[in-house]
């Protein structure tokens, strides 16, 4: 029983992490919408990589790329 609960917990935490990446990707996409400077483009590219890594269930790698995407998105359009 414990094993089953552990497996369910693992799956649910993985799903939460994946959903989190999706929502962060949407947030980045929306913040750079209509912007076409270097940082906006960089944010888009990094989100794309994060999503690709997410698809391969590389959650930690996806998170790392998403963090970089968010940094660029925060700078995008400031200049």
């Amino acid at each position: 029983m414990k094993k089953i609960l552990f497996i369910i917990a693992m799956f649910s935490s993985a799903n939460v992490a994946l959903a989190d990446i999706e929502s962060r990707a949407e947030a980045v996409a929306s913040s750079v919408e209509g912007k076409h400077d270097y940082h906006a483009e960089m944010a888009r590219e990094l989100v794309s990589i994060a999503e690709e890594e997410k698809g391969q269930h590389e959650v930690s790698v996806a998170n790392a790329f998403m963090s970089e995407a968010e940094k660029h998105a925060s700078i995008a359009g400031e200049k």
Partner: protein
Amino acid sequence: MKKLILLTVCTSLASCAGHLPSTQKSELSGLHSAIQKIKGSGGEQCAPSELAKAEAKELHAAHEIDEHGGYNMSEADELIASGMKAVKAAEAKCAKSKPVPVVKPKPVPVAKPKRGYTDAEVIDLKGINFDSNKATLTASSKDTLNSAVKILKARPSIKVEVAAHTDSGGKASYNEYLSGLRANTVKDYLISHGIDASRVSAKGYGEAYPIADNKTRAGKAKNRRVELIVK
């Protein structure tokens, strides 16, 4: 049989050698240098999309190399190749957007105008005469001046300078003084006939800018003149 096994091992090692991390790191380093070079020459402005793509590919390739540690590197190879392609695209785009240096033509030496006042449009008021040694307009001058008034009314955007000239008879200082008086007489006439004072100025040039030979009567007559210089 031993020879066959040895050959197989050698072939495998040779094929692996092309994918060793050191080779890839060198390729990655090449991509990094290319990106930095284009960044340094304003790539962020002239090719933001292409540069971002190249840089993202570089980061992704670096991750793949670290992750796989030298094995199964085809993905990293593809990413590096794709990054280099994006760099080339960025270079091409930036080269296009660079302004072509304009070669300025050498200035053509312009001869100083004989009249001494630029090559502006000049309205020659032929037929304006003054009493000898005076600034009083003769009756026959009125027709010419009325024509000038018509011209100025038809062209309300222009401003003019009344430029009066004399021949070389008499003292230059007197001629300058007299031409100044005559220029002002014409100016007053124009203003009194409806031309706004802000559009008209007057200047006497004396004998300084002849247009004909002052040794002949005909030449002197030509030199005694009044013109409107469009400003």
